[in-house]
């Protein structure tokens, strides 16, 4: 019996009652809707990309390590008041204004270009005079580029502004929370008043720059005058040579060992102990002249902050164990110096204008992949897509099968050898695994549709890199979704074909039991998952019209072929 297609495919003679599956159009719409919905859930809202984010971050960190310029690092220094400095200097907590004044004088003695002080001097402790004098001196040394963290309380801010007017400028040190499991830190470039970091639409109050932006204004060209877009901070995972000299840093491990640790404890568990930003402690600063201190302070941007247990001002970056909050500002400044106005923009929520571009990219790419796969089951062009990479010889032959197995083993051995060499960083190990899978799919399995999907995602990532941030997370996520969608629909298709074969071969109502009277609704509910152009009847079930699928391979075999065909397996009965 020949195919009876739209509207409502019906197969009569060998079915009782006649099999009625939804028309091709209905099947395409329902299957596309299901895949799109699944894709939205796992990719756009939550799920797959979320799970991939920390691994993507590991890869991104590796890329950042290789391409991130060190111009920012050479211009940025953190002066850190450590907890142990309190003991070493026999000082109490909170640090006296007298001691802070000495620190300011010591910083001034090394001639910095700009200074941010991550302390809020809100209380009148009676020893403000020396503090103010030393601050004013420092203000003149840095030619007005002295910035002081503003308190979040309006009254205290007004009081500080009055006290330090002419000797320091207030900036907002408001910190964004990290974003999810990736630990990626975003940075507010300024606020109107002291409200939470906003996109700068509410302009009723005075605008306050964030410390990094304030410090960079005189030094970096192209920073928006007010309310620049929030930054996603890039953190190289290398440690400053200066810091390695005096801090207790972890010994360097091989990439494989670090990768094993990540696999065991989580992708973000492997972190550096010592910061990227050049750092001197207050003990170094207040000691006798030191050429290393001079080298990192004279003419540089200095961020002075604390690392006190009681203060709780910490940030957890993707690449370092928790660091004192001042490093966030220093690293944001480093990004501005290194990347200029092209600093990486933070991802914005899909509902915030103008991030519709991001949503369009996400949904558009998802829709393209769904259409690619669903349409491939019905359209003749899917055969054409396969042609360039599909050998003329039938794939079912022993020779082809053994070829695939042999090359797979060679590929696995090669990837294993490269990873086992110990020469790769952990991110490079990840890249090798991804590349190995891609090579397996495209070169060995000769999966033309996977190649097309890869190209589609890669082009989208490249074209939209600057605007939409389609990083490794998205590339891998979308391809993983594409693979997953193929497996899900292939399983559904196989189940539907099994049902159709039962419908053809098991004609007695007794065999169907209580489901005998539900055959009509079942035809539609199950038949809607049939893929491809249909031919059917005469114990052949419902077959794809694709010539290569004219012999029944079943899902397991189809998976070996890459592109899912439309045929099903004869059920055992």
């Amino acid at each position: 019996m020949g195919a009876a297609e739209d509207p409502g495919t019906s197969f009569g003679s060998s079915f009782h009652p006649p099999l009625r599956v939804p028309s091709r159009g209905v099947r395409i719409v329902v299957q596309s809707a299901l895949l799109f919905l699944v894709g939205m859930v796992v990719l756009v809202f939550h799920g797959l990309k979320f799970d991939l984010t920390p691994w993507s971050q590991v890869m991104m960190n590796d890329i950042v390590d290789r391409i991130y310029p060190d111009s920012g690092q050479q211009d940025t220094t953190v002066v850190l008041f450590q907890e142990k400095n309190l003991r070493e200097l026999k000082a109490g907590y909170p640090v006296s204004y007298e001691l802070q004044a000495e620190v300011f004088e010591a910083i001034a003695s090394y001639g910095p270009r700009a200074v941010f002080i991550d302390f809020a001097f809100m209380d009148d402790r009676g020893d403000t005079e020396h503090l103010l004098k030393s601050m004013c001196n420092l203000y003149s040394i840095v030619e007005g580029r002295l910035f002081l963290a503003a308190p979040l309380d309006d009254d205290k801010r007004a009081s500080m502004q009055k006290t330090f007017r002419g000797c320091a400028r207030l900036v907002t040190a408001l910190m964004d929370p990290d974003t999810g499991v990736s630990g990626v830190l975003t940075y507010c470039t300024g606020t109107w008043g002291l409200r939470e970091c906003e996109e700068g639409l509410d302009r009723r109050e005075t605008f306050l720059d964030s410390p990094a932006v304030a410090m960079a204004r005189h030094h970096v060209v192209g920073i928006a005058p007010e309310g620049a877009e929030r930054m996603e901070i890039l953190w190289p995972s290398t440690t400053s040579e200066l810091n390695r000299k005096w801090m207790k840093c972890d010994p360097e491990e091989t990439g494989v060992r670090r990768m094993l640790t990540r696999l065991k404890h989580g992708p973000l568990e492997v972190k550096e102990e010592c910061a990227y930003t050049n750092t001197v402690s207050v003990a170094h600063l207040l000691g006798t002249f030191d050429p290393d201190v001079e080298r990192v302070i004279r003419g540089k941007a200095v961020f002075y902050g604390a690392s006190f247990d009681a203060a709780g001002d910490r940030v957890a970056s993707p690449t370092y164990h928790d660091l004192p909050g001042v490093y966030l500002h220093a690293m944001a400044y480093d990004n501005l110096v290194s990347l200029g106005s092209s600093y990486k923009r933070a991802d914005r929520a899909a509902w915030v204008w103008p991030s519709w571009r991001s949503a369009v990219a996400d949904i558009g790419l998802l829709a393209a992949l769904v259409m690619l796969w669903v349409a491939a089951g019905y359209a003749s062009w899917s055969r054409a897509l396969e042609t360039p990479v599909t050998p003329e010889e039938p794939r079912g032959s022993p020779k082809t099968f053994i070829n695939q197995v042999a090359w797979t083993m060679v590929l696995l051995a090669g990837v294993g050898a490269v990873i086992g060499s110990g020469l790769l960083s952990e991110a490079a190990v990840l890249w090798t695994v991804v590349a190995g899978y891609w090579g397996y799919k495209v070169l060995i399995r000769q999966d033309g549709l996977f190649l097309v999907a890869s190209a589609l995602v890669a082009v989208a990532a490249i074209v939209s890199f600057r605007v939409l941030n389609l990083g490794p997370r998205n590339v891998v996520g979308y391809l993983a979704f594409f693979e997953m969608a193929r497996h899900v629909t292939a399983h559904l298709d196989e189940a539907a074909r099994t049902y159709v074969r039962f419908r053809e071969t098991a004609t007695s109502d007794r065999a169907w039991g209580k489901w005998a009277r539900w055959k009509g609704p079942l035809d539609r509910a199950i038949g809607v998952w049939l893929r491809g152009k249909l031919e059917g009847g005469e114990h052949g079930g419902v077959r794809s019209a694709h010539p290569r699928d004219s012999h029944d391979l079943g899902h397991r075999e189809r998976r070996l072929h890459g592109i899912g065909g439309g045929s099903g397996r004869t059920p055992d009965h």
Partner: protein
Amino acid sequence: MGSAAAADELQITNLRGNSVDLFGCDDLSKSVWRVSQSEFRGPGKFRGPWPATKEPDKPMFLRVVVNGDRYCVKAYLVEANTPVPATSAGGECQPKGGKQSKPAFSRGVGEGCR
């Protein structure tokens, strides 16, 4: 001065600003003398270099001997023959092997002390 032992001693070799205040070590709030660069380099009683030791109870200061008298000076305002961080432990810190061969950063704060 000039002997091997003298070379190992901590010495103030330069003043960082135009002048430096010398304090009495018993009362650090009062400056006893203000020594200028020219006096430190000149032939007078403030001529440098000054032998120095760490002041364990006052980590920000160094105790110096100037013309036989003892004074205290803020560490960050002077330059020594080897950088000395401001730590209370520094007063007990003796260089390994009789000579501190590494600068302060190589040594780290408090590191290298017996």
